[in-house]
């Protein structure tokens, strides 16, 4: 088997952090991740099946890990060494094509009875992520026993697998998992009909969230921020009514909501610049997860409005007075599970994601494919995707020799 393996190695972790701070994506060259060749792994349990990835995506949380920027919060929730990769389309040994739903829930851990969230289909909220028959790991891609998608093979529990319809290309199929995150965020917002929603960030996550909002909700106006021309173009194509630069979001939301603004009267910034809004968007979905983006969200959400954090935040510094004063709701949106639609129907997030990928042709977000051997280049490309006019960067394992040995 060929795989990228992430080990617990503090000095190299520190080196990755320094390198990642200098140039995003550079952690791959210095950090505790290596390309390895080893014997095929063993199944972690009887029911587990082997998956041979065809395409395996690189997501923001992967990059945070590679660049040493992940929160220490995750340390007890993962098991070293592990193989990253949780956005996967692959083949089973019977040659059927599957997409991985990577959350490791009570079912995959063989825990019975299942925890309360899992029993309701909300597997992202599983309360037993460190327990059961397998090592800790919130998802495939952070658990030592299962392996991960950045390898020519790994193991998955049948409850994690979704068959891929024939009409789906591999590129479309690999977009299902990130799309499910966007769908979950869009529906977690419980956006009122004819409401105004702002999406901060127009990377892959921002784009699929825009698409999900347009497809599954009924907003009056979708406003999004984007830094790069290609991000702006696609955001508009996928349904954003207004696309602005990140530093223009306050004014854009103000205009769309017809609200007033509170301008700066202190020495912080130029006098008269817009500090925050008196009203604001019904919902703000933060797909960036930085101090700046969350602060922006706090200043443009209307009183009693909701802020959904989809982008994985790490350690941030925030002025939380507006959260208190404006009685805002700050809500996390992690992965997926079961969604409740406006008509009350409960639907698996992945089913909605399949539907959305197909209708919005989200395979167009797959911008570049790399062989595993070129992982350093791939990770640098992914870390600088926006500037390079790209969105989703994936590993293409279809022609890897190790994968095709049965």
């Amino acid at each position, binding site marked *: 088997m060929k795989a990228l393996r992430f080990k617990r190695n503090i000095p190299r972790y520190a080196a990755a952090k320094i390198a990642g701070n200098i140039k995003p994506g550079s952690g791959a060259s210095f950090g505790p991740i290596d390309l390895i060749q080893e014997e095929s792994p063993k199944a972690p349990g009887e029911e587990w099946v082997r998956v041979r990835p065809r395409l395996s995506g690189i997501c923001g949380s992967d990059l945070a890990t590679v660049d040493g920027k992940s929160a220490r919060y995750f340390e007890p929730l993962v098991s070293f060494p592990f193989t990253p990769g949780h956005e996967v389309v692959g083949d089973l040994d019977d040659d059927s094509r599957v997409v991985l739903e990577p959350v490791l829930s009570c079912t995959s851990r063989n825990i019975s009875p299942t925890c309360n969230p899992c029993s309701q289909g909300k597997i992202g909220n599983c309360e037993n992520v460190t327990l059961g028959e397998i090592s800790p790991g919130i998802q495939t891609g952070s658990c030592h026993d299962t392996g991960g998608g950045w390898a020519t093979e790994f193991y998955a529990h049948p409850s994690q697998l979704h068959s891929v319809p024939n009409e789906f290309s591999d590129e479309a199929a690999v977009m299902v998992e990130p799309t499910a995150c966007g769908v979950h965020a869009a529906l977690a917002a419980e956006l009122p009909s004819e409401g105004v929603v702002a999406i901060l960030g127009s990377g892959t996550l921002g784009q699929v969230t825009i698409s999900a909002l347009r497809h599954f909700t009924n907003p009056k106006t979708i406003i999004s921020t984007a830094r790069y021309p290609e991000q702006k173009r696609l955001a508009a194509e996928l349904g954003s009514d207004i696309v602005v630069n990140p530093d223009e979001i306050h*004014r854009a939301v103000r205009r769309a909501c017809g609200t*007033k603004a509170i301008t700066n009267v202190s020495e912080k910034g130029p006098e008269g610049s817009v500090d925050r809004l008196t009203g604001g968007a019904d919902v703000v979905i933060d797909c960036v997860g930085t101090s700046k983006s969350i602060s922006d969200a706090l200043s443009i959400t209307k009183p009693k409005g909701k802020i959904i954090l989809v982008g994985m935040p790490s350690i941030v510094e925030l002025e939380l007075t507006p959260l208190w004063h404006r009685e805002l709701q700050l809500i996390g949106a992690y992965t997926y599970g079961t969604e409740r639609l406006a008509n009350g129907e409960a639907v698996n997030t992945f089913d909605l994601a399949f539907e959305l990928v197909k209708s919005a042709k989200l395979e167009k977000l797959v911008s570049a494919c790399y062989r595993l051997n070129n992982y350093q280049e791939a990770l640098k490309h992914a870390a600088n995707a926006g500037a390079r006019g790209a969105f989703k960067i994936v590993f293409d394992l279809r022609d890897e020799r190790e994968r095709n040995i049965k």
Partner: protein
Amino acid sequence: MNNENKETSRPSPRPGFVLDVDRNTPPIVFHHGENFRLEKLPVGRSRVVYPSEPLEGLSDPEGAIKDALLNPLGDSEPLPSLLKPGMKLTIAFDDISLPLPPMRKPDIRQRIIEAVLDMAAEAGVDDVHLIAALALHRRMTEDELRHAVGDRVYDSFAPKGLLYNLDAEDPEGMIVLGETPHGEDVHFCRRAAESDLLIYVNINLVSMDGGHKSTATGLAGYTGLRHHHNVHTLRNSKSIMDKDNSALHASNWRMGDVIKDAGVKIFQIETTVNNNTFGREGPLALLQKREWEWTARDRGQFIAMQRGLDLLPVKTKRRIFGGWQSPYEMTSVQAGEVEAVHKRTIENVYAQQLVTVEGQTDILTMGLPYICPYNVNSIMNPILVMCLGLGYFFNLYKGKPLVREGGVLIMSHPTPWEFHPVHHPSYIDFFEQVLIETTDPIEIEKKYEKQFAEDEWYIHLYRNSYAYHGVHPFYMWYWGSHAMQHLGRIIIVGGDQKAVRRLGFQSASTLQDALEIATDVVGPQPTITHLKNPPIVMADVI
């Protein structure tokens, strides 16, 4: 009226003229925001339109003012006969946008208002309001008002609430006087309308100013202004500096009739100033000299100034230039009935500014200075750069535009992507939201004007802060719409490239590059005319 000239040892001022550029012509000074460029124009096919030298100012301004008030023009009684005890008197005056740059103390408005108030006091008039007729411009600050009317007037009236800025969004303070035959609402300041006499105090810097426009525009709000501050009207004003060929003025004159028919009695006082913008002596005096007459000292001084400015931060440069007050001298004052007064005023403006130019040109060049009517004590943002070049300088013509239809306009200005957030909040939104989608004035007007005009936040800032009204950037854009329609290409030299692109124009690093780019539109060996302004020059193109 008293137009008597000062006794002076200075030679008679020379009129403006057109210089044909030859091998001996030195580089020409182009204004370039808070700096200057020296540009060599192609020999044999370039010409420069130079402004007239400053006319002599009135030797006794106070005496001339008194004379004008006692000997009005047209169908008007002398001012003292119009002033009665117990009457309601309103004095409205031009705001911070005039003159440019602001003039040295005492401001003309102060001189006139003091004279009027003396007569009002003699007549026993004690119900007097003074109103800065700013329409949808930003409110003037206390310092700015003090500068315009003087400390004595300010201290007598402002503390009692009798000297104030017009609030054209005050529903109680504004009324609709009627409608013109063209269906235009005449929106007007209620206090002015309900006064027994409205005296308007004007500084007629350019021929666009004054006449019925003083009151019909200066004392109106959006309800009235939208009828003539629009693309259709501005595109049919050829030019806005030539009243008889200006749809903008025709509309204001129709409104003037409605104002008169509504019983509003107006006593109009108009003044003109000379071209002494930069002083006959002092650090900027060489900007009023013709380059081939520069002494070695002038040249050294210019180079030192240019290099010094290059080293200074923008904010410092802005502060230095913003502090410049022109030693303008009043060249005429006339009072009485609006149209009779204005006719004489325009003659006096033209006497200073009009220069005959034979034929149009393929390429018109201009150096844009650091100031326009809407950035006094503020920042010249990209929209204002557009408006100054395309709205004002392009329109400084009578007859036909200096540049032929389909020709190229080249403007020199740094065009920074920078806005004054207090003065121009809606400009920022206009730049971010509107121009990113379209630069077509018709489309902009149709899709966005109402939203901006009725935006509550902008209205709040206009009324309570120092912000131009939400609709004001639209008017700036419309001001340039005639030029945009007429020109084949617009190029900005030395501007911020992103900002220039957002305006829909082309960017060039040097004048030579710009001229090269222009040949794509006007062909090789084009004729070039440089409008050397300011001091202000207006072309009478024959």
